[in-house]
């Protein structure tokens, strides 16, 4: 069956899915606003995503990495906009942006060792130096943790999306689409199923409840099992991946929302560019990509 279902067909299917959702957006969704909140209806993102996927499938790594770099840059820019920072942090912020091309290069060249090391070791070591040479005291540890977290999450962890492609394009496709689908579908499913919301999220309007996450798992596990032969996974691993995707997606949104709540910008305004649009699209991938990458690299290669 692996021969029958090719990447090209999957990409085409993704485009058709998006077209279907566009139709849904203009027919059913306006009549059922509680079941289809804006998160699902945000179709521009799905169009971008599917074009990106199609480009990756048909033209290879370079457009994929360009798109990934852009996403990483935009998400990082949003993150640095909302976190408190001092003037003395400018150098460190620059360094964070600068780490993006390095990570992308190691992904492109498939240099696994350097990809895994660069951010957690070298950027980690360089950031405090850049902050320390400014000589400005007061808040250096806070700045370090804020900036360092951003680089780890939005450059390093997102870099794994690219490396998944290098590992196996089929796996990249499966995980990217299922993660995004899980992240988006969990919101209406949680509304549908009810139940206590996950912590912090109750004041933000974005509800994800444990029941909703379980329901989404009930959708994603069969999908993942069905894609197992295409991906070349044993049923056991398909089951594991299918279970991990909804759980990690929920974790990602929980973490990003905790941070937003901590800064005091939870809730309103997430629909405005620069105020969490990209961050919200990437939050689930930041968690699924690295964990599943290591899982698959260990068990399935």
């Amino acid at each position, binding site marked *: 069956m692996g021969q029958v279902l090719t990447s090209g067909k999957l990409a085409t299917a993704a485009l058709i899915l998006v077209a279907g959702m566009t139709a849904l957006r203009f027919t059913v969704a306006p009549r059922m606003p509680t079941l289809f909140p804006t998160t699902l209806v945000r179709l521009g993102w799905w169009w971008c995503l599917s074009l990106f996927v199609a480009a990756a499938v048909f033209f290879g790594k370079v457009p994929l990495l360009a798109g990934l770099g852009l996403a990483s840059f935009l998400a990082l820019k949003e993150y640095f906009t909302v976190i408190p920072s001092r003037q003395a942090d400018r150098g460190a912020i620059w360094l964070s942006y600068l780490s993006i091309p390095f990570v992308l290069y190691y992904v492109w060249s498939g240099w696994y060792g350097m990809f895994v090391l660069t951010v957690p070791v070298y950027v980690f070591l360089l950031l405090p130096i850049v902050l320390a040479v400014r000589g400005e005291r007061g808040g250096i540890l806070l700045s370090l943790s804020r900036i360092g977290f951003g680089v780890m999450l939005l450059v390093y962890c997102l870099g794994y999306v690219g490396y998944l492609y290098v590992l196996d394009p089929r796996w990249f496709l499966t995980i990217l689409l299922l993660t995004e689908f899980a992240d988006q579908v969990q919101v209406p499913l949680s509304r549908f199923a009810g139940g206590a919301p996950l912590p912090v999220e109750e004041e933000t309007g974005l509800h994800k409840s444990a029941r909703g996450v379980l329901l989404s798992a009930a959708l994603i596990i069969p999908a993942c099992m069905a894609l197992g032969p295409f991906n070349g996974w044993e049923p056991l691993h398909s089951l594991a991946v299918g279970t991990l995707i909804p759980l990690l997606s929920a974790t990602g949104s929980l973490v990003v929302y905790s941070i937003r709540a901590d800064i005091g910008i939870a809730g309103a305004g997430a629909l405005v*560019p620069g105020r969490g649009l990209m961050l919200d699209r990437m939050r689930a991938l930041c968690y699924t990509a690295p964990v599943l990458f290591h899982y698959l690299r260990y068990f399935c290669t």
Partner: protein
Amino acid sequence: MRPGAWLRALVHVLLVRPFTRWVIGFNVSGSESVRGLKQMVLAANHNSHLDGLLVFSSLPLRQAMRLHPVAAEDYFGQGDLWGMLARWLFNMVTISRTRVSRRHNPLERMQRVLDRGDSILIFPEGTRGEPDRMAPFQAGVGHLAKSFPDIPIVPVCVLGAGRSMPRGASVPVPVWTTVEFGSPLRAQGRPAETAAALEQAIREMAERAGRWHGAVPEAGDSRKPAYVAVVGIDGSGKSSIQRRVVEALSSIRPVAGIGDVLLLGRQGRLEDIGWIPGACLKQTLHRLAKASRIPLGYKLAKLAELAMRRHLQDVITLKFRPHAVVYDGHPLVNVAAWGTLAYPELFNERRCAEALGIMSGRGEPSLFYLRRMPEVLALRLFARFDLPDAMVLLKLDPGTAMRRIESRGEEKQMHETAEKLGRLQKAYEAVGRLLRERYGVRVLELDVDGKTLSEASQEAADFVRQVVECG
């Protein structure tokens, strides 16, 4: 359009706008207030060289190409390549910041631009200053508005640019910014009032959007409010006059009143100040001090009350950013006057001046005060009030004052006799003289005998307004 103008538009579309949109990133809000305007004066806050770029990019190209930012000649007016390029690309009007006279009136060049039917972008702060801090607006924009009453003036709030590229930085850091257009204003009364109204509008916008830019803009004004004391003996009506002054001054920006009760004037009305932590405690201490029959008890309770009052003043200043704080009887003036009465041999003029300096933190304390007048040191340590910038000293015949006090029907305090009030009045006058001569405080001696309350308040308010506006 001329070929030069085409080229300029092309550079904007191909270089400037992609740069501001993708590398920096900006959100525009309130753009409907400039939609369709043929001519306008934009007044923006200024923290960065990016401010101009962002305002240009957030306007439709047609409007942007007719916009002329006002720039400093000493910065952009030079013959170097950078200056020439910037002048050409943004149609700059350069004005001199140093050579200002009737012959070199900087407004003239701006007026010529407006006469041609073009628009102006002005930064009334005059300089970029600290990131995300606003300097007071200068009156130039108000003069401009007065000469062109038909052209709408639009306040523009640019946030985040100071973070991306603060003064002194040569490379911008990519972070999102916000450009918000406020609703258009017209010239109002005096030029300074127009400038203040613009400043207030921008401040409000900054406060709303600030939380998206890394930090709520510092609540504290970079400027100190003007401190004004209304001083006089009991029965002179200082509390009522203080209330009215607060009310009269608050038409443009908030004014706080500090005394036995806390006041806040906004938009010409006294408002409820709301719940402030500690206000109850202060009231309790105040009653405790009044009830105390032994001097030490009175002093301790009073000191605690003043410390609390000082804390509340800080809270109010941070929360409401008043442009003036009006005291009902200034603590330092009171202490000095009472000191002169209580220790006539110890508290001569020199000592009195010294004590005022020590209490306000301007002078250094000496051992003498530790031994003889620990109250002075205690006030410096626990309730350091600033000396007032201006003082209204109410003068009244002690006999009249006594009659008024008696008519209140309350229990009289120890010092409330005509003779003691007369001496207190003399002491206040002496302190007022001292403040004027040693510390340059402006003092108005206001004779309230035979004046109605509103006449006296009017006079006091006029004086205070003058002080506040002249800085």
